[in-house]
């Protein structure tokens, strides 16, 4: 009976909001990388600008996402010891390998994608022009076709690496088979598929808002394919989540009554998760996707919903006592270590880096930037 028995004395929810945010960031990173790469590879000219925005988002998240688990360490200053004394059987070392791999791929892709812009911008005398000049690495005669081939190569490589990076987060949970709700491989699929939903949603949101700020019009028809893909992935996500919950109930393990208590305690998160995914699934096939406001609403709901998915993956499992005596509630602080302010500051950092990268490389490709006379170069 809830509240009537003692849980194990050392039991607390060890990984609260920062790890939820970390899984959320890595999901958007993977989803945005995949969607940007696919748009580039398929040569969808109408979505060229969206691809660029998605790439800026990926680059920003490459720096912000690892900060969440780093802040979560009780001794963050010793984080550098992980590569120095790496135990290769640890999932955290696997994170380092995958992050380094994805970082290298994204840096190479960015270099060839933005090199021609850097050369153009280096002609300017301003601060960002000087930074762009450094980033050209002394390249002057650029062949856009050659660069395009290299970008395509690294875009192809980035897809599996990003998917591995996202699935790794699921792997981190599935290896903890002593924790009820985590010891199932379905989590890998849950994480991977919801990554696609949030990645596409976030890229659309950043793109549409960016265009609106610049006063440029976006036609809903342009975004038809990404919205449909997002809706289909929301459907897959619902199916996989449904499979997970039904199988947990069907197996009816000794921990089931505790699982049920944890589900009840996080009812709001589950409600947002299921309701939001249904909304995105159905909305993508209705008139919602035919208006820009509808598309913004769908994208915003997809991002919020996936945060709820991450919450339901990370938090309820940790609430369950390993002694089988009950559940504990997460202690979420506003200020301090693992507090909500840390999460908010990470979001601010994400936006700052996003705008910084735009300032350096340009929101639009250099050949499309209006000149002083108002003409496109």
């Amino acid at each position, binding site marked *: 009976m809830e509240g009537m028995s*003692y849980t*194990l*004395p*050392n*039991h607390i929810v*060890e*990984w609260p909001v920062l790890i939820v945010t970390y899984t959320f960031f890595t999901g958007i990173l993977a989803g945005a990388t995949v969607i940007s790469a696919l748009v580039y590879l398929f040569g969808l000219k109408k979505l060229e600008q969206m691809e660029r925005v998605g790439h800026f988002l990926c680059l920003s998240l490459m720096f912000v996402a690892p900060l969440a*688990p780093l802040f*979560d*360490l*009780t*001794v*963050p200053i*010793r*984080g550098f*010891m*992980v590569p*120095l*004394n*790496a*135990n290769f*059987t*640890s*999932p*955290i*070392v696997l994170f380092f390998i995958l992050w380094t791999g994805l970082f290298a791929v994204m840096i190479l892709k960015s270099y060839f994608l933005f090199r021609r812009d850097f050369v153009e911008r280096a002609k300017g005398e301003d601060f960002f022009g000087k930074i762009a000049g450094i980033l050209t690495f002394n390249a002057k005669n650029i062949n856009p076709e050659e660069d395009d081939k290299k970008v395509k190569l690294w875009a192809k490589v980035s897809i599996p690496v990003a998917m591995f990076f996202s699935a790794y987060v699921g792997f981190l949970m599935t*290896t*903890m*088979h*002593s*924790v009820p709700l985590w010891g199932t491989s379905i989590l890998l699929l849950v994480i991977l598929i919801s990554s696609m939903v949030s990645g596409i949603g976030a890229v659309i949101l950043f793109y549409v808002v960016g265009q609106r700020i610049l006063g440029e019009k976006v036609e809903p028809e342009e975004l038809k394919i990404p919205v449909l893909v997002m809706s289909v992935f929301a459907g897959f996500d619902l199916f996989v989540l449904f499979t997970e919950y039904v199988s947990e109930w069907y197996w009816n*393990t*000794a*921990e089931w009554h505790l699982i049920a208590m944890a589900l009840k305690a996080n009812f709001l998160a589950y409600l947002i998760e299921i309701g939001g995914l249904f909304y995105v699934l159905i909305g993508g096939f209705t008139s919602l996707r035919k208006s820009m406001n509808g598309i913004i609403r769908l994208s915003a709901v997809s991002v919020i919903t996936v945060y709820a998915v991450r919450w339901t993956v990370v938090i309820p499992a*940790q609430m369950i*006592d*390993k*002694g*089988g*005596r009950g559940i504990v509630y997460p202690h979420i602080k506003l200020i301090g270590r693992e507090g909500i302010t840390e999460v908010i500051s990470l979001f601010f950092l994400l936006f700052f880096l996003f705008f910084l990268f735009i300032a350096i490389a340009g929101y639009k490709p250099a050949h499309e930037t209006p000149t002083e006379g108002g003409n496109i170069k």
Partner: protein
Amino acid sequence: MNQVQKKTSRKSFLKAIGVGAVATCTSSVFKPLRAERNFPPQKGKNRYVFVVDVRKCIGCDACVAACKAERNTPLGVFNTWVEKWEIGFTDSATGETKVKVLNVPKLCNHCENPPCVKVCPVYATFRDEKDGLVLQRYDRCIGCRLCKQACPYGVRYIDPVMMVMNKCTWCDHRIRNGLKPACVDVCPTDARNFGDIANSNDPIWELLKENSIQVLKPEEGAKPRVFYIGLENIEGIHIGSGSETVHPGEVWTDTADGKVYTYNVSMQHNKYKKEK
């Protein structure tokens, strides 16, 4: 017609036996290989085990207090504790439903195949191969708490003073100087026992030979080294859902009589055997 049916059933029966035999042989070959791949066999002379006789524990918590004093454990966290289990059962003689209360001491199991060591990214948690103790390097721990998530027994905690992971060490500073762990020393009823099974004259052998031995959560495959006496045939408690799971066998040679001993520790069965 009947003969044909008989032949068919005999054939399918033999086929099933053949498939079963092949599957059993294959699994018995591959399972030990898989287990040994994780951790090398112990190299040192000592092989410490902890034996808790639940029948004798009166729940006085002297062990908890002694541990707190010995290790200077901060408030709010525990290296060991004593759980109260209320178990309902039907008296076979009278048919009445009765309740009995057990005091079950819990502490780090210093597993043979410790999941906490496997997941530690910087080798801050390690298994000392000399005596099999699972210990912590406090100056190396980064505080990721992955070991706590991986531990099936919930014995690890973040030390609120040092802000790194801490755990029960079976009082390694005492046992390496010939003493017993503090909790064993203060136990008034000898419910807690500690010994070295590498030493054939150790009194711990008597307990192991004479009693039914159980471990907690054998289905996790961690091969724990805290052995319990008095938990057999207990139903309705959550010490693991895999009561049918047989724990991988342990085999060693008793130097006293030169015979090979083995006991498979599973939750509900006395598997101690003396091989002839």
